[in-house]
Protein backbone atom coordinates (compact mmCIF):
# COMPACT_ATOMS: atom_id res chain seq x y z
CA UNK A 1 0.00 0.00 0.00
CA UNK A 2 1.53 3.25 -1.04
CA UNK A 3 1.11 6.01 1.45
CA UNK A 4 -0.52 9.15 0.16
CA UNK A 5 2.11 11.69 -0.57
CA UNK A 6 1.11 15.24 0.13
CA UNK A 7 3.23 16.68 -2.65
CA UNK A 8 1.33 14.69 -5.23
CA UNK A 9 -1.88 16.42 -4.35
CA UNK A 10 -0.49 19.88 -4.04
CA UNK A 11 -1.64 22.04 -6.94
CA UNK A 12 1.13 23.53 -8.99
CA UNK A 13 1.99 26.89 -7.60
CA UNK A 14 1.38 29.76 -9.91
CA UNK A 15 3.51 32.80 -10.16
CA UNK A 16 6.75 33.48 -8.40
CA UNK A 17 7.86 30.22 -6.94
CA UNK A 18 11.51 29.69 -6.24
CA UNK A 19 11.82 28.13 -9.65
CA UNK A 20 10.58 31.06 -11.60
CA UNK A 21 12.26 33.61 -9.46
CA UNK A 22 15.59 34.02 -11.01
CA UNK A 23 17.12 36.11 -8.27
CA UNK A 24 19.48 34.28 -6.02
CA UNK A 25 20.80 36.31 -3.17
CA UNK A 26 24.28 34.91 -2.89
CA UNK A 27 25.06 35.07 -6.56
CA UNK A 28 22.71 37.65 -7.80
CA UNK A 29 22.41 37.06 -11.49
CA UNK A 30 25.59 35.07 -11.27
CA UNK A 31 26.06 34.53 -14.92
CA UNK A 32 24.10 37.53 -16.01
CA UNK A 33 21.65 37.51 -18.82
CA UNK A 34 23.98 35.44 -20.89
CA UNK A 35 23.35 32.37 -18.85
CA UNK A 36 19.74 31.63 -18.30
CA UNK A 37 20.61 28.04 -17.59
CA UNK A 38 21.51 28.87 -14.06
CA UNK A 39 18.24 30.52 -13.27
CA UNK A 40 15.96 27.72 -12.27
CA UNK A 41 15.27 24.52 -14.04
CA UNK A 42 13.42 25.75 -17.03
CA UNK A 43 15.95 28.17 -18.43
CA UNK A 44 17.53 27.41 -21.74
CA UNK A 45 21.12 26.30 -21.95
CA UNK A 46 22.55 29.61 -22.97
CA UNK A 47 25.75 28.57 -21.29
CA UNK A 48 26.74 26.91 -24.52
CA UNK A 49 26.43 30.22 -26.32
CA UNK A 50 28.82 31.83 -23.86
CA UNK A 51 31.26 28.97 -24.25
CA UNK A 52 30.93 29.07 -28.02
CA UNK A 53 31.64 32.74 -27.95
CA UNK A 54 35.08 32.23 -26.48
CA UNK A 55 36.09 28.96 -28.06
CA UNK A 56 36.66 30.79 -31.25
CA UNK A 57 37.89 34.35 -31.20
CA UNK A 58 34.97 36.73 -31.51
CA UNK A 59 34.49 39.82 -33.63
CA UNK A 60 36.27 40.36 -36.88
CA UNK A 61 39.08 37.88 -36.69
CA UNK A 62 41.01 39.99 -39.14
CA UNK A 63 41.92 42.65 -36.59
CA UNK A 64 45.59 42.96 -35.69
CA UNK A 65 44.70 42.43 -32.02
CA UNK A 66 43.53 38.95 -32.92
CA UNK A 67 46.81 38.17 -34.62
CA UNK A 68 49.04 39.21 -31.72
CA UNK A 69 51.02 36.41 -30.16
CA UNK A 70 48.85 34.73 -27.48
CA UNK A 71 51.75 34.55 -25.01
CA UNK A 72 52.36 38.27 -25.28
CA UNK A 73 48.66 38.94 -24.85
CA UNK A 74 48.40 36.69 -21.80
CA UNK A 75 51.37 38.36 -20.11
CA UNK A 76 50.19 41.84 -21.04
CA UNK A 77 46.61 41.30 -19.87
CA UNK A 78 47.59 39.58 -16.63
CA UNK A 79 50.09 42.35 -15.95
CA UNK A 80 47.51 44.97 -16.75
CA UNK A 81 44.96 43.42 -14.39
CA UNK A 82 47.53 43.06 -11.60
CA UNK A 83 48.64 46.67 -11.89
CA UNK A 84 45.25 48.24 -12.50
CA UNK A 85 43.57 46.47 -9.60
CA UNK A 86 46.19 48.06 -7.35
CA UNK A 87 45.05 51.52 -8.44
CA UNK A 88 43.12 53.39 -5.79
CA UNK A 89 42.07 56.62 -7.50
CA UNK A 90 38.89 56.79 -9.50
CA UNK A 91 40.66 58.79 -12.20
CA UNK A 92 43.33 56.16 -12.62
CA UNK A 93 40.79 53.35 -12.76
CA UNK A 94 38.58 55.22 -15.19
CA UNK A 95 41.59 55.81 -17.45
CA UNK A 96 42.51 52.12 -17.26
CA UNK A 97 38.95 51.12 -18.17
CA UNK A 98 38.87 53.70 -20.94
CA UNK A 99 42.12 52.34 -22.37
CA UNK A 100 40.69 48.83 -22.39
CA UNK A 101 37.54 50.06 -24.10
CA UNK A 102 39.72 51.64 -26.79
CA UNK A 103 41.60 48.33 -27.18
CA UNK A 104 38.30 46.47 -27.40
CA UNK A 105 37.07 48.86 -30.06
CA UNK A 106 40.38 48.63 -31.91
CA UNK A 107 40.04 44.86 -31.95
CA UNK A 108 36.61 45.45 -33.53
CA UNK A 109 34.87 43.18 -31.04
CA UNK A 110 31.10 43.30 -30.92
CA UNK A 111 30.48 46.04 -28.40
CA UNK A 112 26.81 45.18 -28.11
CA UNK A 113 27.67 41.67 -26.99
CA UNK A 114 30.16 43.04 -24.49
CA UNK A 115 27.58 45.45 -23.11
CA UNK A 116 25.16 42.59 -22.59
CA UNK A 117 27.82 40.64 -20.75
CA UNK A 118 28.71 43.61 -18.58
CA UNK A 119 25.13 44.07 -17.41
CA UNK A 120 25.61 41.66 -14.55
CA UNK A 121 28.03 44.15 -13.02
CA UNK A 122 25.27 46.69 -12.46
CA UNK A 123 23.33 44.89 -9.71
CA UNK A 124 26.62 43.92 -8.10
CA UNK A 125 27.93 47.47 -8.09
CA UNK A 126 24.53 48.80 -7.05
CA UNK A 127 24.35 46.56 -4.01
CA UNK A 128 27.87 47.56 -3.00
CA UNK A 129 27.18 51.26 -3.39
CA UNK A 130 24.00 50.94 -1.34
CA UNK A 131 25.60 48.82 1.34
CA UNK A 132 29.12 50.11 1.81
CA UNK A 133 28.27 53.59 3.14
CA UNK A 134 26.81 51.89 6.19
CA UNK A 135 29.63 49.50 6.91
CA UNK A 136 32.77 51.47 6.21
CA UNK A 137 33.65 53.95 8.94
CA UNK A 138 34.41 57.51 7.91
CA UNK A 139 33.00 60.97 7.56
CA UNK A 140 29.21 60.81 7.85
CA UNK A 141 27.19 62.57 5.17
CA UNK A 142 23.79 61.25 5.96
CA UNK A 143 22.18 60.24 9.22
CA UNK A 144 18.87 58.72 10.02
CA UNK A 145 17.62 58.28 13.55
CA UNK A 146 14.64 56.31 14.61
CA UNK A 147 14.37 55.76 18.32
CA UNK A 148 17.56 54.11 19.42
CA UNK A 149 18.41 53.03 15.88
CA UNK A 150 20.83 55.27 14.07
CA UNK A 151 21.95 54.71 10.51
CA UNK A 152 24.96 56.64 9.34
CA UNK A 153 26.13 56.66 5.77
CA UNK A 154 29.74 57.64 5.17
CA UNK A 155 31.34 59.31 2.21
CA UNK A 156 34.27 56.90 2.39
CA UNK A 157 31.83 54.03 2.10
CA UNK A 158 30.39 54.85 -1.26
CA UNK A 159 33.72 56.05 -2.60
CA UNK A 160 35.18 52.69 -1.59
CA UNK A 161 32.30 50.88 -3.28
CA UNK A 162 32.72 52.91 -6.44
CA UNK A 163 36.45 52.17 -6.51
CA UNK A 164 35.86 48.43 -6.08
CA UNK A 165 33.22 48.44 -8.81
CA UNK A 166 35.60 50.22 -11.17
CA UNK A 167 38.31 47.69 -10.41
CA UNK A 168 35.99 44.79 -11.19
CA UNK A 169 34.82 46.55 -14.36
CA UNK A 170 38.40 47.06 -15.52
CA UNK A 171 39.36 43.46 -14.82
CA UNK A 172 36.30 42.14 -16.63
CA UNK A 173 37.10 44.27 -19.67
CA UNK A 174 40.66 42.96 -19.65
CA UNK A 175 39.68 39.29 -19.40
CA UNK A 176 37.03 39.78 -22.07
CA UNK A 177 39.59 41.39 -24.35
CA UNK A 178 41.99 38.50 -23.88
CA UNK A 179 39.42 35.76 -24.38
CA UNK A 180 37.52 37.38 -27.21
CA UNK A 181 40.56 38.19 -29.30
CA UNK A 182 42.50 35.02 -28.58
CA UNK A 183 40.09 32.12 -28.12
CA UNK A 184 40.51 29.36 -25.60
CA UNK A 185 42.75 27.14 -27.69
CA UNK A 186 45.43 29.76 -28.16
CA UNK A 187 45.21 30.90 -24.54
CA UNK A 188 45.83 27.30 -23.50
CA UNK A 189 48.77 27.06 -25.92
CA UNK A 190 50.23 30.12 -24.26
CA UNK A 191 49.64 28.67 -20.79
CA UNK A 192 51.31 25.46 -21.78
CA UNK A 193 54.30 27.48 -23.01
CA UNK A 194 54.47 29.01 -19.54
CA UNK A 195 54.85 25.53 -18.03
CA UNK A 196 51.33 25.13 -16.71
CA UNK A 197 51.19 21.34 -16.15
CA UNK A 198 49.79 19.50 -19.15
CA UNK A 199 47.21 17.78 -16.96
CA UNK A 200 45.48 21.13 -16.35
CA UNK A 201 45.50 22.10 -19.99
CA UNK A 202 43.97 18.78 -20.95
CA UNK A 203 41.48 18.89 -18.11
CA UNK A 204 40.25 22.31 -19.17
CA UNK A 205 39.89 21.15 -22.77
CA UNK A 206 37.99 18.01 -21.85
CA UNK A 207 35.79 19.85 -19.36
CA UNK A 208 34.79 22.45 -21.90
CA UNK A 209 34.00 19.68 -24.32
CA UNK A 210 31.76 17.80 -21.90
CA UNK A 211 30.03 20.78 -20.32
CA UNK A 212 27.72 20.69 -23.33
CA UNK A 213 27.01 16.99 -22.96
CA UNK A 214 26.51 16.94 -19.21
CA UNK A 215 24.55 20.18 -19.38
CA UNK A 216 22.18 18.72 -21.96
CA UNK A 217 21.74 15.65 -19.81
CA UNK A 218 20.84 17.86 -16.86
CA UNK A 219 18.41 19.86 -18.93
CA UNK A 220 16.63 16.71 -20.06
CA UNK A 221 16.40 15.56 -16.47
CA UNK A 222 15.01 18.92 -15.40
CA UNK A 223 12.38 18.76 -18.11
CA UNK A 224 11.44 15.23 -17.13
CA UNK A 225 11.19 16.21 -13.48
CA UNK A 226 9.00 19.15 -14.32
CA UNK A 227 6.84 16.89 -16.49
CA UNK A 228 6.32 14.58 -13.53
CA UNK A 229 4.85 17.52 -11.67
CA UNK A 230 7.73 18.34 -9.36
CA UNK A 231 7.24 21.61 -7.53
CA UNK A 232 10.16 22.57 -5.35
CA UNK A 233 9.53 23.63 -1.77
CA UNK A 234 10.36 27.06 -0.55
CA UNK A 235 12.72 26.39 2.30
CA UNK A 236 15.58 24.23 3.49
CA UNK A 237 13.42 21.82 5.45
CA UNK A 238 11.33 20.60 2.58
CA UNK A 239 12.44 17.00 2.55
CA UNK A 240 10.95 16.04 -0.75
CA UNK A 241 12.70 18.86 -2.60
CA UNK A 242 16.09 17.89 -1.31
CA UNK A 243 15.58 14.21 -1.91
CA UNK A 244 14.54 14.89 -5.49
CA UNK A 245 17.36 17.35 -6.20
CA UNK A 246 19.85 15.04 -4.52
CA UNK A 247 18.70 12.16 -6.67
CA UNK A 248 18.94 14.29 -9.78
CA UNK A 249 22.54 15.10 -8.96
CA UNK A 250 23.27 11.50 -7.99
CA UNK A 251 21.91 10.16 -11.27
CA UNK A 252 23.78 12.87 -13.14
CA UNK A 253 26.94 11.78 -11.33
CA UNK A 254 26.45 8.13 -12.22
CA UNK A 255 25.70 8.96 -15.84
CA UNK A 256 28.70 11.29 -16.07
CA UNK A 257 30.90 8.67 -14.46
CA UNK A 258 29.81 5.97 -16.87
CA UNK A 259 30.11 8.35 -19.77
CA UNK A 260 33.63 9.19 -18.63
CA UNK A 261 34.56 5.51 -18.66
CA UNK A 262 33.00 4.95 -22.07
CA UNK A 263 34.81 7.97 -23.47
CA UNK A 264 38.08 6.85 -21.97
CA UNK A 265 37.76 3.37 -23.42
CA UNK A 266 36.70 4.69 -26.79
CA UNK A 267 39.71 6.96 -26.83
CA UNK A 268 42.01 4.09 -25.83
CA UNK A 269 40.55 2.05 -28.64
CA UNK A 270 41.50 4.79 -31.04
CA UNK A 271 45.04 4.82 -29.78
CA UNK A 272 44.95 7.59 -27.18
CA UNK A 273 48.08 7.47 -25.09
CA UNK A 274 47.70 10.48 -22.85
CA UNK A 275 50.27 12.53 -24.65
CA UNK A 276 49.14 15.76 -26.12
CA UNK A 277 50.79 16.87 -29.26
CA UNK A 278 52.20 20.19 -28.38
CA UNK A 279 52.34 22.59 -31.24
CA UNK A 280 55.42 24.71 -30.82
CA UNK A 281 54.53 28.36 -31.12
CA UNK A 282 56.77 30.45 -33.33
CA UNK A 283 58.76 33.03 -31.40
CA UNK A 284 56.86 36.32 -31.00
CA UNK A 285 57.79 38.99 -33.48
CA UNK A 286 58.89 42.52 -32.72
CA UNK A 287 55.43 43.90 -33.45
CA UNK A 288 53.88 41.52 -30.89
CA UNK A 289 56.42 42.43 -28.24
CA UNK A 290 55.97 46.12 -28.93
CA UNK A 291 52.22 45.88 -28.42
CA UNK A 292 52.65 43.86 -25.24
CA UNK A 293 55.12 46.41 -23.94
CA UNK A 294 52.72 49.22 -24.84
CA UNK A 295 49.77 47.66 -22.96
CA UNK A 296 51.96 47.00 -19.94
CA UNK A 297 53.51 50.44 -20.02
CA UNK A 298 50.05 52.05 -19.94
CA UNK A 299 49.32 50.16 -16.73
CA UNK A 300 52.72 51.04 -15.26
CA UNK A 301 52.22 54.63 -16.33
CA UNK A 302 48.87 54.83 -14.57
CA UNK A 303 50.36 53.35 -11.42
CA UNK A 304 53.27 55.79 -11.49
CA UNK A 305 50.88 58.63 -12.24
CA UNK A 306 48.93 57.74 -9.15
CA UNK A 307 52.03 57.47 -6.95
CA UNK A 308 53.45 60.62 -8.49
CA UNK A 309 50.16 62.41 -8.10
CA UNK A 310 50.18 61.52 -4.45
CA UNK A 311 53.69 62.86 -3.95
CA UNK A 312 52.77 65.99 -5.83
CA UNK A 313 49.74 66.49 -3.60
CA UNK A 314 51.83 65.89 -0.49
CA UNK A 315 54.44 68.42 -1.59
CA UNK A 316 51.71 71.04 -1.91
CA UNK A 317 50.78 70.70 1.74
Amino acid sequence: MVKARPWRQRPARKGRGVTSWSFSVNFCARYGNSMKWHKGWKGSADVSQVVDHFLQPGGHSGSFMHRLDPRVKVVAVVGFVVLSTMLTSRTGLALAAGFLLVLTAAARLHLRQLAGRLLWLLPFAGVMILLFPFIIPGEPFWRWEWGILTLTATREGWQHALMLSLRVFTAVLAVNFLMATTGLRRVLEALSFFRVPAVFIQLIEFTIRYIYVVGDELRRMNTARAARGFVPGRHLFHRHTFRTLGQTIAVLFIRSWERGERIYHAMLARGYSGENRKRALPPPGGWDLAWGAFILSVAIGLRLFELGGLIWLLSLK
Partner: protein
Amino acid sequence: MHIPDGFLDPKIWVGASALSAGALAAAVSNTRKVLEDRQVPALGVMAAFIFAAQMINFPVAGGTSGHLLGGALAAILLGPWSAGLILTTVLVIQMLFFYDGGLTALGANVLNMAVIAPWVAYGAYRLVGGLFKGNAGRTVATFLAAWLSVMAAALACSLEIAFSGTVPLAVVLPAMLGWHALIGIGEGLITVVVVSFVSRLWGLEQTGQKSYAGGAQ
Protein backbone atom coordinates in the same frame (compact mmCIF):
# COMPACT_ATOMS: atom_id res chain seq x y z
CA MET B 1 31.85 33.04 -2.75
CA HIS B 2 33.92 33.84 -5.83
CA ILE B 3 36.12 36.81 -4.97
CA PRO B 4 36.37 39.30 -7.87
CA ASP B 5 39.45 41.26 -8.90
CA GLY B 6 40.36 44.27 -6.82
CA PHE B 7 38.98 42.97 -3.54
CA LEU B 8 42.25 41.51 -2.34
CA ASP B 9 45.47 43.14 -1.30
CA PRO B 10 48.51 42.05 -3.38
CA LYS B 11 50.09 40.47 -0.29
CA ILE B 12 46.99 38.37 0.30
CA TRP B 13 46.44 37.18 -3.26
CA VAL B 14 50.12 36.46 -3.88
CA GLY B 15 50.26 34.46 -0.65
CA ALA B 16 47.06 32.59 -1.43
CA SER B 17 48.26 31.86 -4.97
CA ALA B 18 51.51 30.45 -3.64
CA LEU B 19 49.65 28.19 -1.20
CA SER B 20 47.27 27.03 -3.94
CA ALA B 21 50.12 26.38 -6.35
CA GLY B 22 51.83 24.22 -3.75
CA ALA B 23 48.64 22.30 -3.03
CA LEU B 24 47.98 21.78 -6.73
CA ALA B 25 51.52 20.63 -7.39
CA ALA B 26 51.07 18.05 -4.63
CA ALA B 27 47.73 17.06 -6.15
CA VAL B 28 49.25 16.61 -9.59
CA SER B 29 52.06 14.43 -8.32
CA ASN B 30 49.73 12.44 -6.06
CA THR B 31 47.13 11.76 -8.70
CA ARG B 32 49.84 10.81 -11.16
CA LYS B 33 50.92 7.98 -8.87
CA VAL B 34 47.53 6.28 -8.96
CA LEU B 35 45.92 7.85 -11.94
CA GLU B 36 47.54 7.43 -15.26
CA ASP B 37 47.75 10.51 -17.39
CA ARG B 38 45.50 8.74 -19.80
CA GLN B 39 42.54 8.94 -17.47
CA VAL B 40 42.33 12.69 -17.80
CA PRO B 41 39.26 12.48 -20.10
CA ALA B 42 37.30 10.79 -17.34
CA LEU B 43 38.32 13.51 -14.87
CA GLY B 44 37.23 16.10 -17.41
CA VAL B 45 33.76 14.59 -17.51
CA MET B 46 33.63 14.74 -13.71
CA ALA B 47 34.63 18.42 -13.81
CA ALA B 48 31.83 19.05 -16.29
CA PHE B 49 29.53 17.23 -13.87
CA ILE B 50 30.54 19.49 -10.97
CA PHE B 51 30.05 22.49 -13.22
CA ALA B 52 26.52 21.32 -14.07
CA ALA B 53 25.73 20.37 -10.46
CA GLN B 54 26.60 23.90 -9.39
CA MET B 55 23.82 25.14 -11.65
CA ILE B 56 21.10 23.44 -9.64
CA ASN B 57 19.55 25.88 -7.22
CA PHE B 58 17.93 24.75 -4.01
CA PRO B 59 15.49 26.79 -1.92
CA VAL B 60 16.90 28.26 1.30
CA ALA B 61 14.23 30.42 2.90
CA GLY B 62 11.83 33.17 1.98
CA GLY B 63 12.21 32.75 -1.75
CA THR B 64 16.00 32.89 -1.75
CA SER B 65 18.05 30.08 -3.14
CA GLY B 66 21.55 28.72 -2.96
CA HIS B 67 23.50 26.26 -5.02
CA LEU B 68 25.84 23.39 -4.46
CA LEU B 69 29.57 24.04 -4.18
CA GLY B 70 30.44 20.41 -4.68
CA GLY B 71 33.70 20.41 -2.70
CA ALA B 72 32.52 17.78 -0.24
CA LEU B 73 30.79 15.75 -2.94
CA ALA B 74 33.93 15.57 -5.06
CA ALA B 75 36.18 14.89 -2.07
CA ILE B 76 34.05 12.03 -0.73
CA LEU B 77 33.32 10.36 -4.06
CA LEU B 78 36.61 10.95 -5.88
CA GLY B 79 39.16 11.61 -3.14
CA PRO B 80 40.53 15.01 -2.12
CA TRP B 81 43.43 15.08 -4.58
CA SER B 82 41.29 14.57 -7.67
CA ALA B 83 38.67 16.86 -6.16
CA GLY B 84 41.26 19.63 -6.00
CA LEU B 85 42.17 19.22 -9.67
CA ILE B 86 38.54 19.05 -10.78
CA LEU B 87 37.39 22.04 -8.75
CA THR B 88 40.37 24.10 -9.90
CA THR B 89 39.43 23.37 -13.49
CA VAL B 90 35.86 24.45 -12.80
CA LEU B 91 37.08 27.68 -11.18
CA VAL B 92 39.42 28.48 -14.08
CA ILE B 93 36.61 27.99 -16.59
CA GLN B 94 34.22 30.10 -14.52
CA MET B 95 36.85 32.82 -14.33
CA LEU B 96 37.73 32.84 -18.04
CA PHE B 97 34.25 32.41 -19.48
CA PHE B 98 31.88 33.91 -16.95
CA TYR B 99 34.04 36.38 -14.98
CA ASP B 100 33.03 34.48 -11.89
CA GLY B 101 35.93 35.26 -9.64
CA GLY B 102 38.83 37.46 -10.62
CA LEU B 103 42.07 36.77 -12.44
CA THR B 104 44.24 37.94 -9.57
CA ALA B 105 41.87 36.38 -7.04
CA LEU B 106 42.05 32.98 -8.75
CA GLY B 107 44.66 31.73 -6.30
CA ALA B 108 42.52 32.73 -3.34
CA ASN B 109 39.39 31.22 -4.88
CA VAL B 110 41.25 27.99 -5.59
CA LEU B 111 42.56 27.96 -2.03
CA ASN B 112 39.07 28.42 -0.55
CA MET B 113 37.01 26.22 -2.79
CA ALA B 114 39.39 23.69 -4.31
CA VAL B 115 41.86 23.12 -1.48
CA ILE B 116 40.31 24.04 1.87
CA ALA B 117 36.76 22.86 1.10
CA PRO B 118 37.60 19.34 -0.13
CA TRP B 119 40.26 18.75 2.51
CA VAL B 120 38.05 19.91 5.38
CA ALA B 121 35.26 17.75 4.00
CA TYR B 122 37.54 14.77 3.62
CA GLY B 123 39.04 15.18 7.09
CA ALA B 124 35.62 15.53 8.71
CA TYR B 125 34.27 12.59 6.74
CA ARG B 126 37.08 10.27 7.78
CA LEU B 127 37.08 11.48 11.39
CA VAL B 128 33.34 11.33 12.03
CA GLY B 129 32.90 8.25 9.85
CA GLY B 130 35.54 6.52 11.97
CA LEU B 131 33.73 7.43 15.19
CA PHE B 132 30.28 6.22 14.21
CA LYS B 133 29.97 3.04 12.25
CA GLY B 134 27.14 2.02 10.01
CA ASN B 135 24.78 3.78 7.72
CA ALA B 136 23.67 6.41 10.19
CA GLY B 137 27.29 7.18 10.98
CA ARG B 138 28.04 7.70 7.33
CA THR B 139 25.04 9.97 6.93
CA VAL B 140 26.14 12.11 9.86
CA ALA B 141 29.71 12.16 8.61
CA THR B 142 28.67 13.18 5.12
CA PHE B 143 26.38 15.93 6.32
CA LEU B 144 28.98 17.35 8.71
CA ALA B 145 31.69 17.12 6.06
CA ALA B 146 29.61 19.10 3.58
CA TRP B 147 28.48 21.69 6.11
CA LEU B 148 31.99 22.18 7.49
CA SER B 149 33.49 22.45 4.01
CA VAL B 150 31.14 25.29 3.11
CA MET B 151 31.77 27.04 6.41
CA ALA B 152 35.55 26.65 6.13
CA ALA B 153 35.55 28.07 2.62
CA ALA B 154 33.35 30.98 3.72
CA LEU B 155 35.61 31.62 6.71
CA ALA B 156 38.74 31.65 4.56
CA CYS B 157 37.02 33.94 2.06
CA SER B 158 35.95 36.41 4.74
CA LEU B 159 39.40 36.43 6.33
CA GLU B 160 41.06 37.12 2.99
CA ILE B 161 38.69 39.99 2.24
CA ALA B 162 38.93 41.42 5.74
CA PHE B 163 42.73 41.26 5.93
CA SER B 164 42.90 43.04 2.60
CA GLY B 165 41.09 45.90 4.26
CA THR B 166 38.21 45.78 1.80
CA VAL B 167 35.41 45.17 4.28
CA PRO B 168 35.77 45.23 8.08
CA LEU B 169 36.03 41.78 9.63
CA ALA B 170 33.13 42.52 12.00
CA VAL B 171 30.87 42.96 8.98
CA VAL B 172 32.04 40.34 6.53
CA LEU B 173 32.48 37.48 8.99
CA PRO B 174 28.93 37.32 10.40
CA ALA B 175 27.43 38.02 7.00
CA MET B 176 29.38 35.29 5.20
CA LEU B 177 29.22 32.71 7.96
CA GLY B 178 25.56 33.37 8.72
CA TRP B 179 24.48 32.98 5.13
CA HIS B 180 26.71 30.00 4.45
CA ALA B 181 25.56 28.23 7.60
CA LEU B 182 22.20 28.03 5.81
CA ILE B 183 23.68 27.21 2.41
CA GLY B 184 25.75 24.53 4.14
CA ILE B 185 22.58 22.79 5.34
CA GLY B 186 21.35 22.53 1.77
CA GLU B 187 24.79 21.38 0.62
CA GLY B 188 24.82 18.80 3.41
CA LEU B 189 21.36 17.44 2.62
CA ILE B 190 22.08 17.08 -1.08
CA THR B 191 25.52 15.59 -0.49
CA VAL B 192 23.99 13.02 1.88
CA VAL B 193 21.44 11.96 -0.72
CA VAL B 194 24.01 11.78 -3.50
CA VAL B 195 26.63 9.88 -1.50
CA SER B 196 24.15 7.33 -0.15
CA PHE B 197 22.60 6.88 -3.59
CA VAL B 198 25.93 6.43 -5.32
CA SER B 199 27.40 4.14 -2.71
CA ARG B 200 24.26 1.99 -2.74
CA LEU B 201 24.59 1.71 -6.48
CA TRP B 202 28.27 0.96 -6.43
CA GLY B 203 27.80 -1.37 -3.48
CA LEU B 204 30.86 0.05 -1.85
CA GLU B 205 32.04 -0.89 1.57
CA GLN B 206 34.17 2.15 1.63
CA THR B 207 33.51 5.11 -0.58
CA GLY B 208 36.45 6.07 -2.65
CA GLN B 209 37.34 2.58 -3.77
CA LYS B 210 36.41 3.54 -7.25
CA SER B 211 38.24 6.78 -6.89
CA TYR B 212 40.29 7.83 -9.89
CA ALA B 213 42.94 9.21 -7.64
CA GLY B 214 42.73 6.59 -4.96
CA GLY B 215 42.85 9.50 -2.58
CA ALA B 216 40.22 7.98 -0.35
CA GLN B 217 42.16 4.83 0.32
